[in-house]
């Protein structure tokens, strides 16, 4: 129980009649770096806002450190560092004033760390927020969040609009934070190369529904691409399309390119019976696996339900 930092149970949100998040149930264990993925508008920010009690769920519940998100006590809030999307600030403040403002609302304040992060991003204490570049604003936001020494870091698309150097600095700080064994990081992102570097586990939202919640490596292994070649034999596409785990299938000349999910023995067995002259496996990177999984496809599937349950 104490080892789960974030838990949601059928968390659902409707804005009017529009569904923003449907029945999200997941757990984030303590000490892990958790990547929260999905296309724009798939419900990531909505989920994060509900976790923090900034938005009331339509149904379902969420807890952080065992406390209900809608009634988080101050001492629990004090342990959470939250970086909202787009790094909003009071524009008239100076960097050091923003620091003073933040330090007044948190129990802990690591001034040295705050100044170190500012320096790393090239921000002077007397610089006005409105004059900072986007990367610097992100840096200031990070400094404010890290200086409170949170036990749980919630970052909503921290890398949005950052140049590669600033992004790298961001990743370095995330690795730095994991020095503290008990610290958990929950971040949403579109940058799969970053996710591949730092995340232990990922959750994937698609059209407001949780499709996968597992280790990065598991996700990658679950998705496979194979090319079936048919020489002098007719393509039996009906048979191929009815294979278990079929995501999509592209027909090129006498070849079929299949993307398959949950590729276990069952799938291998089926591949042997589709009558192809040769079968070639195509290795996939995380990004390709993600694209193959969430890219446009004819039929919606939820094969990952199984993975989510067993992992």
């Amino acid at each position, binding site marked *: 129980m104490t080892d789960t930092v974030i838990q949601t149970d059928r968390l659902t949100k409707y804005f009017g009649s529009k569904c923003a998040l449907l029945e999200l149930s997941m757990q984030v264990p303590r000490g892990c770096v958790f990547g929260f993925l999905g296309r724009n508008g798939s419900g990531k920010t909505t989920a994060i806002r509900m976790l923090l009690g900034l938005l009331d769920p339509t149904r379902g519940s969420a807890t952080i450190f065992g406390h209900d998100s809608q009634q988080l006590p101050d001492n629990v809030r004090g342990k959470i560092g939250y970086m909202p999307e787009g790094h909003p600030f009071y524009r008239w403040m100076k960097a050091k004033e923003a620091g003073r403002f933040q330090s007044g609302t948190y129990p802990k304040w690591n001034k040295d760390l705050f100044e170190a992060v500012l320096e790393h991003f090239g921000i002077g204490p007397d610089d006005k927020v409105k004059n900072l570049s986007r990367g610097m604003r992100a840096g200031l936001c990070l400094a404010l969040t890290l200086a409170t020494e949170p036990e749980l870091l919630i970052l909503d698309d921290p890398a949005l609009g950052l140049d590669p150097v600033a992004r790298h600095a961001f990743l370095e700080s995330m690795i730095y934070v994991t020095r503290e064994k008990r610290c958990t990081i929950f971040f949403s992102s579109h940058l799969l190369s*970053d996710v*591949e*570097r730092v995340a232990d586990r990922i959750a994937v939202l698609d059209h407001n529904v949780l499709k996968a919640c597992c280790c990065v490596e598991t996700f990658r292994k679950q998705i496979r691409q194979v090319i079936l070649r048919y020489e002098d034999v007719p393509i039996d596409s009906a048979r191929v399309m009815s294979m278990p785990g079929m995501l999509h299938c592209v027909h090129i000349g006498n070849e079929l390119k299949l993307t398959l999910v949950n590729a276990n023995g069952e799938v291998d067995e089926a591949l042997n019976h589709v009558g192809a002259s040769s079968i070639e496996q195509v290795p996939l990177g995380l990004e390709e696996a993600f694209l193959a999984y969430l890219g446009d496809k004819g039929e919606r599937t939820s094969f990952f339900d199984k993975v989510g349950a067993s992992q």
Partner: protein
Amino acid sequence: MKPNLTIKTGSPTPIYRQIVDQICLAAATGEMQPGDAIPSVRTLAERLVINPNTVAKAYNELRRDGVIESQPGRGMFITDKRDVLTKSERVRRIQPLLDALAEQSVMLDLDNSELHKRLDQALKQVGKPPASGEKP
């Protein structure tokens, strides 16, 4: 600091596998000698900016294959045990690359002596002594 590792994201080869391969290569070519220390999990994670668990996973695999060993309280070291894989397994792993090399050299119409010479040079560059082959 040795070994000089680099990683690539977005590759079909997972990051932990890239680390395993590079340390194996460094040990096999003599870039790293038996008894050389390898960086701690934390140090390597911060240097490469990757999750420490990924490094730990790579080290576990290297330890299981006998490429590195941990000495409690001192850290992790390259072992002097080289022949972890059987000869037939090693041949099996190199064969596809040899086939590709042969195919390309026919396509590019390179004559055999030229090819042998270049292969020897390439082997020399990664630090394997010519012809004499196996280490004692």
